[in-house]
């Protein structure tokens, strides 16, 4: 019995050592080393039982459409997917119809514009990447569909970035077209601060502070990056519970069969 305990201890220590190494190794090296870690926020969708706060996500969609969509595309999201954050079919049709989408060619061989449909994607503000760069000081604003997965600690980082614009500390020179941001690696970001208090008038009456808008748009973008999150976590709970139960049964079977050998 003691031998088994010793062996189990050794295995556990080895496993913990591995995980420690993994955790240590997985903190990304910061470029200049002095970019602070984004402060941890509490998100409705974190943890094993997380879900997307529908109201926050819908406010976030409003922030995206009224502020961000002027420069940032969201091309991996289709309007019909908005059902995932609580919109009904007629609301989705209305949102889609507000944009014009290029279609064609028609029978004359020409491209034409039509009102958006639920099956369409969110439109891009620019024709292509080069146009986007040309209109933005040489740097194309990145697509936001996967932004919270494309950055380490995505949601926290995004929230910190949007609220992290500040005056450059003394001694730091900000080149033309640049803006100082506390959390952006290298501190000089091409994007001007996008949010200002009351910049958006929320339809549900919530006060639109910069912090509130940042939280809402990050919730929306987290949904946009991982629309399957709620289904994934709920399936995960069921799978884990089943596996724990089933493995328990298998352990009993194993002991039963091995009785005569032990």
């Amino acid at each position, binding site marked *: 019995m003691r031998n088994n305990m010793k062996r189990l201890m050794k295995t556990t220590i*080895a496993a913990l050592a591995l995980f420690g190494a993994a955790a240590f*190794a*997985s903190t*990304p*090296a910061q470029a200049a080393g002095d970019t602070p870690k984004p402060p941890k926020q509490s998100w409705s969708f974190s943890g094993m039982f997380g879900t997307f706060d529908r109201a926050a996500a819908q406010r976030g969609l409003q922030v995206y459409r009224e502020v961000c969509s002027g420069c940032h595309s969201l091309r991996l999201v289709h309007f019909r997917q908005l059902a995932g954050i609580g919109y009904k079919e007629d609301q989705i049709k209305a949102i889609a119809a507000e944009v014009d989408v290029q279609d064609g060619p028609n029978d004359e061989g020409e491209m034409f514009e039509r009102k958006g449909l639920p099956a369409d994607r969110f439109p891009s503000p620019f024709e292509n990447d080069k146009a986007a760069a040309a209109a933005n000081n040489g740097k194309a604003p990145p697509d936001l569909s996967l932004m919270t*997965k*494309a950055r380490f600690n995505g949601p926290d980082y995004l929230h910190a970035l949007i609220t992290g614009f500040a005056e450059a500390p003394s001694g730091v020179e900000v080149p033309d077209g640049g803006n100082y941001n506390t959390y952006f690696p290298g501190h000089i970001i091409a994007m001007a601060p996008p949010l200002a208090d009351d910049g958006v008038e929320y339809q549900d009456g919530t006060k639109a502070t910069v912090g509130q808008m940042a939280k809402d748009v990050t919730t929306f973008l987290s949904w946009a990056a991982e629309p399957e999150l709620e289904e994934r976590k709920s399936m*995960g709970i069921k799978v884990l519970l089943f596996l724990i139960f089933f493995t328990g049964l298998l352990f009993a*079977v194993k002991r039963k069969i091995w009785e005569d050998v032990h």
Partner: protein
Amino acid sequence: MSNKQMHPLIQWIDYRLPIFSFMEHELHEYPTPKNLNYWWNFGSLAGIVLVIMLVTGIVLAMHYTAHVDYAFDSVERIMRDVNYGWLMRYIHMNGGSMFFIVVYIHMFRGLYYGSYQAPRELLWILGVFILLAMMATAFMGYVLPWGQMSFWGATVITNLFSAIPWVGDSIVTLLWGGFSVDNPTLNRFFSLHYLMPFVIVGLVFVHLWALHMHKSNNPLGIDAKTDQDCIPFHPYYTVKDMFGLGVFLIFFAYFVFFAPNFFGEPDNYIPANPLQTPPHIVPEWYFLPYYAILRAFTADFFLYSYTPIAWIMTAKLAGVISMFASILLLLLMPWLDGSKVKSSKFRPVYRMFFWIFFIDCIVLGVVGGKPPEGMWIYIGQATTTYYFIHLLIVVPIVSRLERPKTPPESISAAVTQQAEG
């Protein structure tokens, strides 16, 4: 096995194609040492993960498009639109990491208990070939989503071949199918990524065939001599393997459902941009130790000017050769280790060096993930040097000089001893 017990239909088939008596002999009555511990579960786990990767991979291939303009979007379509597509993708993605975890544990088990020693040398060698095939498969698979890391990882690793003197550049152009990693490269990687797992299946078949010739090793490292030493594989080890599978699936499921991007790189969720290099190019975690060895050879290492072949030896070439050597040297384990006793259980000095080697590999992995700056360069060089010292100096010398403890007479004697003790 009594023929009378077989159902007439089974008998009819078996007479013409003996699959049933084959299974009966190799999987049912197959005598296995009775003292195998849970470290022996990892072989069957590896086989099951291979099947999981094949099935999810074939499913993903139904929806994936291997063209630079469509690859990234086709993967996102799988994630968002295909029914359970996100589940297939996350199982395949995390399954790759699981495959390497299981195989590395399986290999360390072999190193600890001397499973590579006679008469199992070919079994071990086949295993190393399986590892090489897995590494090629995983490398090409990672390129397919065509994210930033896909593209730049492919660029860095294919560029390595230019270090080969005289023909290096031509080889790289051949691999690329062009003048940089581009659509021809992606297309052929997809074809080869689909092919390699079936090569692995073939290698696994031969690996198992070799295993069945002399049966499994065991924690004591002594041969199973009598019937008393063994028990039939079914039901004892089938049920133990199923239990082990249950535990493994819990571990696997946690990552798939609750931390699906833990083993990955956020940069790979950015579409590949040939005109913008990410600040830190890192391969997947299971390649990090080899990456550390590759990068340990820096340009200012003074030894280069002294080597007789300094006119073709570059830091890059030294790194490439060492990286491949770190795996190919493993093929020689059965001959590097000259001990008459197999299991580290009876070799306390060797056992200590085993653990040092294990830690060395872990540290190499950590180094591989760090940017090559400051103290990490020195740690990387030290751990790389020690890796080769272990294989080429420590193992041959300790195995031949150490006087091991005496192993017990037989497995059944040891098992009875343990029960009474």
